[in-house]
């Protein structure tokens, strides 16, 4: 039954990519395709006096220029059904006011991309600039409002307000007050956003090929914004060049392209350039935490209070809303530690910057950083070992399932085991001696840890607690065996680099007793798949893969029934393995599974009623969620002369339950850690005080290369989840979640002798030198 799950199967996706035969949106333009270019605001805050498109229409090659008014002023409104939330509208093209630099106000459609850009330059907009809200401090002052009448605070949640906290803080042996900050960053997929929309007269629908993680949500957004039935929109995600969250919300440009194609009845393509990707696409992670924590004399945490402020930018993204970061942070801050008393206030502030959306980790890189810094601060103040203090606070073996002060139930994990193994591995590998050597060479050097869990696979039982008008969570898979015994699986999840074509095939192949090469995955097409929520939040293998396993199991049951009839044995005695339906204990009696499939389709009349008419099943999965966990350790060096900080060695001990494919899991861990190191040391989206973006190229926004990212050693523990069909836990974000805290702790270890301590990311050379 488990011949393929757990095997290091090379990916089915690789071949076409290596041959240069991937099919990304930008590869799909045909001779009659028109090209779109957006006219964007040069100001962070301005009133639009007028838009004059007459000169643009005269530009050679330009066919059409459309404004919001031309399209009937379509908008999207993401809603959280809570009193603490203020809904705001996001126009697809701004008509009267712009709220961030790069906000789209018109679209130019031309014969090629060059002419479209010429046309966009010729559109004349009369602007009246207004005062700018550049940051959280200005938003709090509320002298200027990004959305009139909101006071700039679009969500304000007070959760778990334990009345005992003031007393605990007054009487505890140790109280720590600290402020933590993380910079605004970009998910920066290597393929930016891209959309090709075309009207299909035969099917009476607009077909939108788009680089998205969430095809069905995009269809819903387009249908809602344009006021048309969902049936008349088909969204297809071809090969997608990474997403990391940036493509899990509906883009305004996707809606505008659909509207333009419906109007022009010609294919229209838009491929954003990197400047648009850095300025007009969504960002994430810009947060600050004002925290008070109390500890007893042995280093056990007694109470925790946090004021969490998130800069959510100018608009509330659809459908997740701008509450996604503050809600996640306030709900999950305690993490793996047993916090007896807790209070959190989570707020989201509107500013004149691009909107924020879920980016890999969603607030958890920040909350892990807060808790891991608090542990180290308390250890230093109390004279307790900085690693050991974690053991005194974490949920220990024998305490699972553990329900925390935040009403979250943590399923079985290996929090202690992963820390113990990490410490053992780095000691054996000589990290402490290496740290000493580096120090003798005149560098500052330090070792840092972070321990964390990652809640994954949020089904509707969990997502519904957020009270979103559109509540994601479940997914549905369909498994169909054809007359030759090969299988098509459909899923509402939508992989974009994670290797789902391979891992789903492994899961289904084991259920049906066939080879993964006989299984093809169909995903990313709203006409081919049941309504589903796409790929984000480390959900796909648990929910999509879980549904696929259930559906394959149902088909396997039918195959066993057919085999039992033909072989004249009991159903329970039939085994499906290696392409054969065999009989337990009778080695010589079997039928090829392909023969069963042939008979079911071509001679179905020979079978009893319950075995006839095809081999297919549709099943859904909707789990409460499951926690994977890991421990990270990193060795860093700091050059006192240049301020350069280097991550030199990185160790991960991770536990995502049952591993479907170790190759894929290791790849997810390494890529995630690289993004975590990036957030800790290199990347930040910056603006000046007028809200002008100042990180608009890859020369300003420093994505680390192979020269900066060190080798990452990985060890696995496997604690299966009871909440998951496969026993697997999601693991797509853990690398990004844990790495920043480990790196920051290592920097502080390196600088401790200088009495310097940082509580923000990224830590840059100039921070060290000042």
């Amino acid at each position: 039954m488990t011949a393929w799950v757990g095997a290091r199967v090379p990916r089915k996706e690789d071949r076409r990519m290596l041959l240069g035969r991937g099919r990304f949106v930008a590869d799909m333009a045909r001779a009659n395709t028109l090209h779109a270019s957006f006219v964007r605001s040069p100001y962070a805050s301005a009133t639009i006096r007028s838009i004059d498109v007459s000169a643009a229409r005269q530009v050679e090659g330009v066919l059409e220029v459309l404004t919001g008014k031309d399209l009937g002023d379509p908008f999207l409104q993401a809603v959280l059904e809570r009193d603490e939330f203020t809904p705001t509208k996001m126009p697809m093209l701004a008509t009267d006011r712009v709220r961030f630099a790069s906000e789209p106000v018109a679209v130019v459609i031309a014969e090629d991309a060059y002419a479209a850009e010429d046309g966009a330059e010729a559109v004349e907009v009369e602007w009246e600039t207004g005062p700018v809200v550049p940051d959280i401090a200005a938003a709090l002052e509320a002298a200027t409002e990004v959305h009139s009448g909101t006071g700039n605070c679009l969500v304000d949640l007070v959760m778990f307000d334990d009345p005992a906290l003031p007393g605990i803080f007054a009487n505890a042996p140790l109280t720590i007050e600290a402020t933590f900050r993380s910079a605004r960053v970009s998910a920066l997929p290597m393929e930016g956003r891209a959309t090709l929309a075309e009207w299909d007269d035969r099917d009476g629908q607009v077909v939108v090929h788009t680089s998205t993680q969430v095809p069905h949500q995009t269809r819903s957004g387009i249908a809602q914004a344009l006021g048309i039935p969902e049936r008349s929109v088909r969204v297809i995600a071809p090969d997608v060049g990474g997403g990391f969250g940036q493509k899990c919300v509906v883009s305004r440009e996707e809606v505008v392209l659909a509207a333009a194609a419906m109007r022009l009845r010609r294919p229209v393509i838009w491929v954003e350039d990197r400047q648009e990707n850095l300025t007009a696409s969504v960002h994430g992670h810009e947060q600050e935490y004002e925290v008070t924590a109390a500890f007893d004399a042995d280093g056990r945490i007694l109470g925790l209070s946090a004021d969490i402020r998130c800069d959510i930018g100018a608009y509330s993204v659809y459908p997740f809303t701008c509450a996604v970061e503050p809600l996640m942070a306030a709900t999950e801050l305690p993490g793996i530690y047993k916090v007896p008393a807790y209070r959190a206030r989570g707020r989201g502030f509107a500013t004149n910057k691009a909107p924020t959306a879920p980016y890999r980790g969603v607030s958890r890189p920040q909350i892990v950083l807060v808790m891991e810094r608090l542990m180290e601060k308390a250890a230093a103040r109390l004279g307790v070992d900085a690693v050991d203090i974690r053991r005194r606070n974490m949920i220990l073996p024998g305490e699972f399932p553990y329900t925390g002060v935040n009403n979250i139930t943590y399923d079985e994990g290996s929090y202690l085991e992963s820390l113990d193994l990490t410490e053992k591995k780095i000691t054996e590998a000589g990290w402490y001696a290496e740290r000493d050597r580096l120090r003798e060479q005149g560098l500052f050097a330090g070792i840092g840890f972070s321990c964390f869990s990652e809640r994954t696979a949020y089904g509707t039982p969990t997502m519904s607690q957020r009270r979103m008008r559109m509540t994601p969570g479940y997914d549905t898979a369909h498994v169909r065996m054809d007359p030759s015994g090969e299988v098509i699986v459909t899923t509402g999840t939508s992989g974009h680099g994670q290797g789902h074509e391979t891992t789903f095939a492994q899961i289904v192949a084991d259920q049906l007793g066939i080879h993964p090469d006989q299984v093809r995955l169909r995903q990313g097409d709203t006409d081919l798949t049941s309504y589903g929520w796409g790929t984000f939040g480390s959900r796909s293998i648990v929910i999509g893969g879980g549904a696929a396993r259930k559906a394959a199991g149902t088909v396997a049951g039918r195959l066993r029934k057919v085999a039992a009839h033909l072989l004249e044995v009991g159903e329970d005695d039939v085994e499906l393995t290696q392409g054969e339906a065999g009989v337990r204990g009778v080695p010589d009696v079997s039928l090829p599974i392909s023969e069963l499939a042939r008979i079911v389709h071509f001679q179905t009349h020979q079978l009893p009623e319950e075995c006839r008419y095809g081999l297919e099943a549709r099943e859904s999965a909707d789990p409460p969620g499951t926690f994977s966990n890991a421990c990270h350790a990193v060795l860093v060096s700091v050059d006192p002369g240049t301020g350069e900080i280097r991550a030199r060695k990185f160790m991960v001990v991770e536990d995502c339950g049952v591993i479907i494919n170790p190759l894929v899991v290791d790849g997810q861990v390494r890529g995630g850690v690289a993004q975590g190191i990036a957030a800790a040391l290199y990347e930040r989206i910056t603006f000046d005080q007028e809200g002008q973006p100042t990180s608009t190229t890859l020369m300003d926004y420093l994505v680390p290369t192979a020269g900066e990212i060190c080798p990452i050693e990985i060890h696995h523990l496997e604690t299966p989840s009871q909440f998951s069909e496969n026993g697997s836990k999601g693991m797509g974000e853990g690398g990004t979640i844990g790495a920043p805290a480990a790196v920051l702790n290592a920097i502080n270890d390196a600088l401790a002798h200088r009495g310097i301590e940082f509580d923000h990311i990224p830590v840059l050379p100039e921070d060290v030198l000042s």
Partner: protein
Amino acid sequence: MKDIHLIALTVNGEEHEIVVESRRTLADVLRHDLGYTGTHIGCEHGICGACTVLLDGQPVRACLVFGVQADGCDVRTVEGLSDGEELSDLQKAFSRCHGLQCGFCTPGFLMLSEAYLSEQDGVPDEAQVREVMASNICRCTGYQGIVEAVRQVAEERAG
């Protein structure tokens, strides 16, 4: 008025003659005029390296070269790496070492690696490979699989 030119270039051994605007990049000529969409465009300002192709054997950013500059040149793209349907040793190594995930940056890394390996006499160490691979950006893999793939091929080719 468009400023147009007739150019001739060889791509993966095949000769092409086309009329291009002077401002049209080699990346757009390859992708949209000649159909070699395996070459990807990731930043259009010469940093990410996704559009790396070999121009007369040397790796270049196809987004920073105008089509007219390639007049009379020999171009190799990712589509020219395999022997028909048979993957090259480098392509196989990328798959074996999980040196790709979403696949968008992959053509650029393959062409960079191809040029680098063709210049090697001995087997480079990991630091040397990393320094060269630092020319390009990958957002998915953390680079380890890419570096390992290039090292393995260097060893295999050195025999």
